[in-house]
């Protein structure tokens, strides 16, 4: 994956999200060692401090845990946690935007709900980063 360097989203967040996706896709199993900050820095050509911040973000949310001298490992229930978190945060954020935009366009609540119901996604669900 190539980072979106033009994005407003800080790079450490992009790194954290990418790692979450790797965990969701089972590319990194639970209790498996996750990339170190230096590996991440090398892979994405970013400063190791930035990579460390991304990892720390995951550690703060208990998605990964530290083993002294061995590095960071994926927590046993990380996948479930990420799913819950994403549902809560990402979706909520999107809905917030949706509602504000609907208001600006004078779309009533009922109309909006109908529009959401009418929308049939094509193919698989896409991941947004």
């Amino acid at each position, binding site marked *: 994956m190539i*980072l979106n360097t033009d994005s*407003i989203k800080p*790079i450490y967040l992009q790194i954290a999200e990418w790692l979450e996706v790797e965990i969701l896709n089972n590319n990194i199993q639970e209790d498996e060692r996750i990339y170190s900050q230096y590996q991440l820095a*090398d892979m994405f*050509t*970013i*400063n190791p401090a930035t990579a460390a*911040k991304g990892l720390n973000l995951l550690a703060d949310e208990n998605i990964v845990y530290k083993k002294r001298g061995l590095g960071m490992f994926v927590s046993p229930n990380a996948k479930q946690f990420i799913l819950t978190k994403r549902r809560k945060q990402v979706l909520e954020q999107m809905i917030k935007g949706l509602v*504000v935009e609907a208001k*600006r366009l004078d779309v009533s609540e009922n109309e909006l709900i109908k529009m959401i119901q009418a929308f049939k996604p094509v193919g698989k669900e896409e991941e947004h980063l």
Partner: protein
Amino acid sequence: MKVIQSHNLSKSYGKTTALNDLTFEIEENTITGLIGRNGAGKTTLLKIMAGHIQPTHGELRIYSQKPFNNLERSAGTILIDDSMMYPDSFRLVDILSEVAPFYANWNNTLANGLFDYFSFNPNQLHSNLSKGSKSTFNSIIGIASRCPLTLFDEPTTGMDSAVRKDFYKALLKDYLKHPRTIILSSHLLSELEEILEEILLIKQGSKRLHLPVMELKELAVGIRGNAQILQPFVEGKELIYREEFAKDNLYIVLRKELLQQEGEVMKQKGLEVFPISTDDLCVYLTASNKGGIDNVFKKD
């Protein structure tokens, strides 16, 4: 450990002031971006660090030594800039082998590897290289010398974007293996932002900002919308940038911390609140007069 400690550093050439009262410290084994517009004093600062020139006032210490005319510091520092000159009796391949003995950590394999990768002609003369190739060649020396303090002054001048990317990649990869203190100067932050840890922003010889680059992205926020609605929110607050556009429209940039909880309210009132790209922020922070170039045309 602090590698560079600058205290009230000033430098003037005759009546012009290149650096004005700079105080900052740089940690060991970090990559710092020295960002500023042309003529902001980046080159002067780097030359003082490299010991080529001395400050007019204040002092700058590297590993607690003054670098000027200091052999020990010179051995531990390399400054890569486009004024580097090599004798005409040296071919490119000679330069690599002749410069090597001066640097204790010089890595020949790396130097030759990069030399081949960028497909230089070993028999060419340094003075006959194009601007971009010269920058590339100099950068090879900068990376391969593995100096504890490596300074790059606008290293990518003239390089095409593919080479730039390769250069930053090479620099970072070697840094990961052999950590050292690196300072890169540039007038453009975006192209080197990812590999930086810290950013030192200078404007007209003075320090504007010095903070981890990650914080820069979240430092400021931009708000755009109807001037009447926006104005009350920002009344009395220090604005980084302010521009009136179209009819009754206002665009302002201010520190995020000044906004606190008001952001949500603003969004609901139809104002656009969005993060500012680091590049734009640097432009705003280093702009000489608020309002930018538009002001010139508004006077009619």
